């Protein structure tokens, strides 16, 4: 059991857009400043900073954690950059949590940034080099391949139809209409998704989140510090993370065992026995629409193969019984990789403190979960927040 209780006291984010003028430093600053202001504190009170950012190949800076540090408020502070591929955005506050829980820090700023537009002609190119250099890259690999291969296997295992999966894109893009930072909010239909341009079958254009520039941040602190600011703070209830083997072609991709493990780690810490009833709403990772379903199952929020049914029946809508991605997710708000994961954590904070405005879910919420996924279909990070 952790030695100290940890609270979340503020959140901030920039616009998510395909191209922004701001440098990565400037984006990091904007999000961090907003998070500190929303917490009602200044950088003086921050004693450590954790930054999350995905491959250096996007921003085009080697050791980009170092480069971004002053923008992230880390000048003359204890500072780390953590990196677990696409799972980085939700992992960053996890790492910030152990800074405070261990007693090494009282106030830790967690910042996530991505400036993908720097890479030309298209940011997708960076993903070629996530594959094994000896025996995969020569095939001309792309990130879309692995999504398509996993999606196909998932559909095959449970007899799921593309139309069912497309409902996730419809829901999330619609939810994003209420998000002030959203890049791809839209009112679309399942038919629009089905008719959109095929990319790597079964993945079509509207199944996919866009590349983006953006940043997001939250402030974590000890319970003692939080109690000085508010009577009713938001607590970090559970953290989990897990990695599967690098040999991704040696397992059945239909089910994310690593996510089940990460979820169990977080549930154990949070004292959650039945996630389906004890988690009030969740921001699960949705870079592609089927991933939301895949992740709901890995998190035990749905039985294997049953997440599509929960979607079809409206359970996962904002006014449903288990709202999933009320923010609009990556599909609607955009996907500046690490910042997108952190955006989900920000959404937990906004929902739990009733600051989500038009996005506020209908039911009363006390416990929210954010999750992200990454590496070569092998990593998950889970962050659970709770308020009285």
């Amino acid at each position: 059991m952790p030695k100290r209780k940890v609270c979340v006291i503020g959140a901030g984010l920039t616009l998510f857009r395909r191209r922004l003028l701001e440098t990565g430093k400037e984006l990091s600053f904007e999000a961090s400043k907003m998070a500190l202001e929303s917490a009602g504190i200044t950088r003086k009170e921050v004693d450590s900073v954790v930054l999350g950012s995905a491959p250096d190949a996007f921003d085009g800076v080697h050791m980009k954690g170092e480069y971004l540090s002053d923008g992230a408020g880390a000048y003359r502070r204890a500072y780390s950059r953590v990196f677990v591929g696409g799972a980085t955005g939700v992992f960053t506050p996890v790492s910030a949590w152990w800074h405070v829980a261990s007693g090494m820090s009282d106030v830790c700023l967690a910042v996530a940034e991505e400036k993908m537009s720097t890479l030309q002609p298209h940011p997708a190119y960076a993903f070629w080099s996530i594959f094994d250099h000896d025996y995969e890259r020569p095939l001309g690999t792309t990130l879309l391949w692995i999504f398509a291969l996993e999606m196909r296997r998932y559909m095959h295992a449970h007899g799921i139809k593309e139309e069912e999966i497309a409902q996730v894109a419809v829901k999330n893009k619609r939810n994003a209409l209420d998000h002030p930072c959203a890049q791809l909010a839209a009112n679309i239909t399942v038919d629009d998704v089905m008719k959109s341009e095929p990319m790597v079958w079964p993945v079509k254009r509207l199944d996919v989140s866009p590349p983006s520039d953006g940043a997001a941040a939250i402030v974590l602190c000890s319970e003692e510090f939080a109690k000085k600011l508010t009577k009713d703070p938001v607590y970090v209830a559970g953290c989990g993370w897990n990695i599967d083997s690098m040999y991704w072609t040696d397992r059945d991709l239909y089910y994310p065992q690593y996510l089940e493990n990460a979820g169990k780690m977080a549930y154990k810490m949070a004292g959650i026995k039945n996630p389906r009833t004890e988690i009030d709403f969740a921001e699960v990772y949705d870079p592609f629409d089927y991933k939301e379903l895949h992740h709901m199952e890995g998190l035990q929020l749905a039985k294997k193969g049953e997440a599509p049914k929960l979607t079809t029946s409206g359970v996962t809508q904002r006014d449903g019984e288990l709202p999933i991605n009320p923010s609009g997710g990556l599909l609607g708000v955009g996907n500046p990789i690490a910042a997108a994961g952190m955006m989900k954590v920000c959404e937990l904070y906004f929902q739990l403190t009733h600051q989500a405005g038009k996005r506020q879910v209908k039911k009363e919420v006390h416990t929210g979960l954010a999750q992200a996924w990454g590496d070569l279909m092998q990593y998950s990070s889970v962050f659970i927040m709770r308020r009285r």
Partner: protein
Amino acid sequence: MSEKVKYFPGKELRPEALDDGEVLVTRYLADPKYDWASGVAIGRFLNELKNGRIIARKCNKCERILVPPRMFCEDCFRDTDEWVYVKDTGSINTYSIAHVGTDAHRLSEPLFVAVISIDGASELMGFLHLLGEVLEKDIKIGMKVQAVWKPENERVGSILDIKYFKPVEMN
């Protein structure tokens, strides 16, 4: 926030802004070069491809036959024990049809991509490769396939020494 914060920072640029001089841009063409030591396991794997064979490693504790080969068993955390030749046939574990390439450009001809579980290795053990000599509509999960090798004199010890996998002809 949505209620309290009225302004979210970020100055959006037009798609052409980086190219037409609207904003100043520093361009950097990097091309870092590497010469990765393949090591004992993958070195042998690639060398054997040159010979037209696929090689695996076996762990005598869990008795799994591992491909791509590795000198350690990640489940048992111990040295793997022996080299085992596996077949150059297998079955499609999963597949997709790629219409876009590495930098998101449209491909003129779609590429068929598959994870092939290799015969002779343990269940699900295999690697990523391409499919050929097959129509899109005929590709199925579980379909039996066989490697189509490059001519011997064109092989260099590369995963591309296998041109692609094609359906096994049924008798």
